[in-house]
């Protein structure tokens, strides 16, 4: 690779981001992440935001909510989802989830369960016809019913 200035800074920020991706369920202290990356807290936050357009805290929250969405789709109980993605209380999880996703975890889970059932029952509703025909999936919904 051509030499770009301060590549070592990128590597440290990327390592911090990957740390959040892996440890999101733990009680992550952003001061510790900054220390791990050998930055002062404020320098770390500024660089992180410059690269990812989010503060580390905003990014961590986003990762937790996205993981929660995946677990809710798998029909895992809301309380279990809440604690397994790193939130400390169900009300704070529910409030944040609703603010970001626009639905409560419960409503989101119901919506996804309905969608999953519909895809299983009538998959051709979700596949453009040209793809379905090319694969010979022309009357699958009738067969599945």
């Amino acid at each position, binding site marked *: 690779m*051509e030499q770009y200035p301060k590549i070592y800074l990128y590597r440290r920020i*990327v390592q911090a981001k990957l740390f959040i991706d892996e440890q999101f369920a733990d009680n992550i202290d952003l001061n510790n992440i900054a220390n791990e990356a050998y930055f002062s807290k404020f320098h770390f936050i500024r660089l992180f935001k410059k690269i*990812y357009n989010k503060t580390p805290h905003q990014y961590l929250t986003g990762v937790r909510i996205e993981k929660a969405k995946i677990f809710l789709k798998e029909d895992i109980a809301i309380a279990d989802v809440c604690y397994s993605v790193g939130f400390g209380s169900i009300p704070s999880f529910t409030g944040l989830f609703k603010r970001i996703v626009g639905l409560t975890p419960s409503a989101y889970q119901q919506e996804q369960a309905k969608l999953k059932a519909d895809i*299983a029952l009538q*998959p051709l509703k979700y596949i453009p016809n040209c*793809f379905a025909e090319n694969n010979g999936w022309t009357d699958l919904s009738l067969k599945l019913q």
Partner: protein
Amino acid sequence: MITKLNHVSVFVLDQDSAHDFYINKLGFKVHTDAPMGPGMRWLTVCPPEQPDLEISLMAINEGMMFSKESAKQMRELVSKGTFGFGVFECNDLLATYEELKAKGVEFTKAPKKEFYGFEALFKDDSGNWFSLGEKKS
């Protein structure tokens, strides 16, 4: 008047492996994952900030779409890196390059400033290659 592209196909050697690559390495999201009978699956993924563009990860199997010979030829062509499927965009190319490299993504071109933009090239787990460019500010 055509207004949008909402589906595009990428032919892959193995859908399970492609699912892992596009979701766990590239950070894409599953849009639709529907079993379509024995050995068949409709699997589409989308870039995290483009939920209405479904990338269909199409398995190259003998069947309606490919004869046995065509499937063999297609698998060979994909494996050899014959096909370039598109250009992805990121906010910060150096950071994205470092992250994907750390996750084991194979780059065939490291980030380089070209006259048309800042670009790198990488391959998916099947051999399809993509350009990765930095969003122009």
